[in-house]
């Protein structure tokens, strides 16, 4: 079993290295085979491990040992990590197979390079999930940051992609530092690094260190999952190719924050403020992102903001203690968001990489199969009844509602409003892009050729999962909760007792979301409330939303520009203060020497004079010494 656990990591690693180093100029077919194949192999290993119901911490070698600080290289296999591995390798495999088709017009070099980066990403994500101690978690954490930098900046001949990549990476590093400091606090106060030893050592009553550690880890989570303060990199990350957005910015990477809180649930249970902060940040981000999504014209940006909003939901869930609900929403989100991205990818691919929704229209008629799958995804996103989205979102909102205290209701209400907004912008996206008759500027006027099979099959699989997946946990409507049972050994008992009321809330959100979706129809198509009219009256609101609440400008003004000025200042200072300081010393000695040499006049008599003067001084000294 130990070898198999390591194999999960070795497969993607081997794939990455092979593609990166050897197959760099090799055949495209080989690349197409190795890329996704390696991930499916990892998927198979996960399944085997799942089958044997392995629940063990495998240690391989000592990574660092400095006195009492001992960090082994160990992999923790338990239901939570297997659950995440399933998501990563499963959905990841689908996306990478989809990418084989999507990227075929790339050159040989870039093709191999793309798949190498994808494999490296999956490897890093697996390390993150499987790591058995905080330090290795950080290694995975930064590895994911690196691969997102590489993939966002994949089209490096586009300046905007390069800038976006760097921005994403710096944001991630800030998150890493939060994680590192959190690891310090944990080690310094509890002298443990390995999870299985650390969690029992944690106190049950909240005190300063647990709060501090929880907050610091939260900083890492926020940066990675693009929550409110550190979220500006996600929309720019859309510069990367669509499969990248699908895999990283929908299914796996952005959910790392949720996994983190779930994994450190003993720590978060032992804190009040940090735990509440998670929920609040999640809720606020959900609302914030949903509002911006309303006015976005680029389809991928809409999806990006919707991702941010959905992750807000997940943070909300884990923030109020409903860890398994959060993870179930994570699973469902992985399904329908990947589906939406890939379907959008099909459209973009067909329309020669045009991402602007205004040029779409008439897709229902021209690309029937992709439109159907996109519809399934949209309905699931909006939270309509049969789809998985409904069950997971309602599950989260239900838990929030039934938590019973002030935080629970406040958070539920924000979630409810966001659900409505989500319904609206999803509807807007569907009607405006797909249902509307073809717009004039559509790049390909005639019949759009549907995506090749290799792209359609993964989309179809995900569509099926989106529709059927809901039945995994229909707790929202009082049914069974398979996911909760699966995760019970790791996450412990459910903390929130459900009472009857939240079914009422669920029905309410369902109806309103459906209405919002329909409202979008006549808003955009029939024009009963013309967009232009709204924009005239609430112009300023639109502009604020479009400018993403001016966060980018704020960061630029607050951090980037002063940093450059400070750097310039230190550069000048370094030259003037220290450098000349040292050089001056040399200059002064030189000048002193010059003055001294004047005394050497060459006249004999002045020499004798100096001689006698010396005698006098010596006499004074000897006298002073003799007398003292």
């Amino acid at each position, binding site marked *: 079993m130990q070898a198999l656990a390591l194999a999960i990591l070795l497969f993607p690693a081997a794939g990455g290295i092979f593609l990166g180093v050897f197959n760099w100029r090799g055949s495209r077919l080989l690349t197409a085979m190795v890329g996704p194949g390696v991930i499916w192999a990892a998927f198979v290993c996960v399944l085997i491990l799942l089958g044997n119901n392995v629940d063990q911490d495998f240690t391989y070698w000592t990574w660092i040992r400095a006195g009492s600080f001992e960090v082994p290289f160990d992999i923790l296999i338990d239901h939570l990590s297997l659950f995440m591995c399933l998501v990563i390798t499963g959905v990841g495999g689908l996306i990478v197979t989809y990418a084989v088709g999507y990227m075929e017009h790339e050159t040989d070099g870039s093709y191999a390079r793309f798949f190498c980066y994808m494999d490296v990403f999956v490897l890093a994500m697996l390390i993150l999930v499987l790591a058995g101690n905080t330090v290795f978690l950080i290694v995975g954490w930064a590895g994911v940051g690196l691969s997102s930098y590489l993939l966002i900046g994949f089209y490096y001949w586009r300046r905007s992609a390069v800038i976006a990549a760097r921005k994403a990476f710096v944001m991630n590093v800030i998150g890493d530092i939060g994680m590192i400091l959190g690891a310090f606090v944990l080690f310094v106060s509890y002298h443990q690094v390995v999870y299985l030893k650390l969690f029992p050592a944690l106190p049950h009553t909240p005190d300063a260190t647990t709060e501090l550690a929880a907050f610091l880890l939260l900083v890492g989570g926020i940066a990675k999952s693009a929550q409110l303060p550190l979220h500006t990199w996600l929309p720019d990350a859309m510069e990367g190719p669509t499969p990248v957005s699908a895999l990283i910015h929908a299914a796996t990477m952005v959910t790392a924050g949720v996994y983190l809180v779930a994994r450190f649930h003993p720590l978060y249970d032992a804190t009040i403020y940090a735990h509440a902060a998670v929920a609040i940040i999640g809720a606020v981000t959900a609302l914030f992102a949903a509002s911006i999504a309303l006015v976005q014209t680029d389809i991928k940006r809409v999806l990006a903001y919707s991702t941010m909003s959905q992750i807000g939901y997940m943070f909300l869930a884990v923030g109020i203690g409903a860890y398994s609900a959060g993870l179930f929403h994570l699973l469902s989100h992985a399904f329908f968001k990947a589906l939406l991205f890939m379907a959008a990818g099909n459209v973009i691919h067909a329309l020669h990489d045009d991402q602007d929704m205004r040029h779409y229209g008439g897709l229902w008629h021209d690309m029937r199969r992709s439109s159907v799958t996109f519809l399934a995804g949209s309905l699931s996103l909006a939270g309509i009844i049969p789809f998985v989205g409904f069950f997971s979102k309602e599950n989260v909102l239900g838990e929030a509602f039934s938590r019973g205290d002030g935080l629970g209701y406040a958070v539920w209400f924000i979630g409810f409003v966001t659900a409505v907004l989500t319904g609206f912008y999803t509807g807007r996206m569907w009607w405006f892009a797909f249902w509307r008759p073809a717009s004039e500027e559509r790049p390909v006027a005639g019949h759009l050729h549907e995506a090749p099979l290799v792209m359609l099959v993964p989309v179809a699989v995900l569509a099926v999962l989106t529709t059927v997946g809901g039945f995994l946990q229909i707790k929202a409507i009082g049914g069974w909760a398979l996911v909760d049972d699966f995760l019970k050994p790791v996450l412990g008992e459910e903390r929130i007792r459900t009472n009857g009321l939240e079914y009422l809330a669920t029905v309410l959100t369902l109806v309103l979301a459906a209405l919002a979706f329909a409202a979008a129809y006549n808003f955009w198509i029939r024009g009963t409330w013309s967009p232009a009219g709204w924009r005239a009256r609430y112009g300023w609101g639109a502009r604020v939303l479009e400018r993403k609440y001016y966060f980018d400008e704020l960061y630029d003004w607050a951090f980037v520009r002063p940093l450059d000025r400070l750097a310039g200042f230190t550069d000048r200072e370094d030259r003037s203060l220290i450098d000349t300081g040292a050089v001056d010393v040399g200059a002064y000695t030189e000048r002193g020497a010059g003055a001294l040499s004047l005394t050497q006049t060459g006249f004999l008599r002045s020499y004798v004079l100096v001689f*006698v003067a010396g005698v006098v001084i010596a006499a004074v000294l000897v006298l002073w010494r003799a007398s003292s």
Partner: protein
Amino acid sequence: MLIRRNPLVMLICIELMLNAVNLTLVAFSRQLNNREGQLFALMTMTVAAAEAVVGLAILVDIFRVRDLEDVDDLSELKG
């Protein structure tokens, strides 16, 4: 010695100083009643003589090259 500018006079001043030393030596010899002082005085006399001879030789050389009567002219070497 400090004031006069003629090198010859300087040599004479040195002789004067050495004479003074002789006087002190003989005085101490008498006071301590041992003859070392006087012998030492004799030694200094011979040394003074030798020095005078060499001094004059060098000065004669310089005078032969150029008529110098002021020691301050001797100031090519400086700085």
